[in-house]
């Protein structure tokens, strides 16, 4: 009997944002880890949790995903701010059928401006915490 895996939450969200016209129009990269070149803006998607929501087990999953919306070297606060708001607006349209799975709902539990002090000078960043409900 074939094993049915839960949705790959990071892949679903990253692929969606990467091809969304509003996000791609900002020329920001969608990544799973810090890019080698940090001169231009990027959004790093990291899954924090994947909770089973209801029977049957592992059919519907509640994903908690952190989006680090970084400005490029010269974009500063306006760029990070805009990138986060555009990504958040794009996620609102996420519910529906995707190649990676079906999204039944989305929400947001956090949206904070937290400059990354591991850069010198600190790099502007807005951290969005999104919740995505999805099933295969």
């Amino acid at each position, binding site marked *: 009997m074939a094993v049915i895996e839960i949705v790959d939450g990071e892949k679903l969200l990253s692929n969606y944002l990467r091809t969304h016209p509003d996000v791609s129009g900002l020329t920001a990269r969608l990544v799973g880890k*810090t890019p080698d070149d*940090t001169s231009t803006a990027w959004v790093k998607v*990291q899954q*924090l*949790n994947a*909770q089973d929501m209801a029977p049957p087990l592992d059919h519907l999953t509640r994903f*908690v995903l*952190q989006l*680090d919306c*970084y400005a490029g070297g010269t974009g500063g606060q306006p760029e990070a701010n805009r990138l986060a708001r555009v990504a958040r607006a794009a996620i609102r349209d996420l519910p529906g059928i995707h190649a990676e799975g079906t999204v039944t709902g989305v929400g947001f*539990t*956090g*949206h*904070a401006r*937290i400059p*990354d*002090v*591991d*850069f010198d000078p600190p*790099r502007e960043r807005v*951290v969005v*915490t999104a919740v995505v409900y999805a099933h295969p």
Partner: protein
Amino acid sequence: MIFRPNPTFAAEMARTPRMQRVLLEAAQAIADEGRNAVPVGDDPRRGHIRDRIRATQQHGDTRTEIDDPFGHLAEWGSVNNPAYAPLRRGVEAAGLRFREK
């Protein structure tokens, strides 16, 4: 007869002794679960964040916090560190929902 909701009802309830106990238990559960989310290594310079995650209650204010100047790096990550998110994960693992203010 007119019903007027008390706008301070939630705050007043939170200050009662019983609710204070409930809130502290929840904060401690978050701290306990959050400690599981941060790594511990052999390097004595690292792994101290676990010891700095605390549940506190003072003057009616209940908190789970990372009492460390680098706590924000553990929670939110950086270009050099993943987001271990002990507080957010601790909230969810304790069966609660996180809503940022």
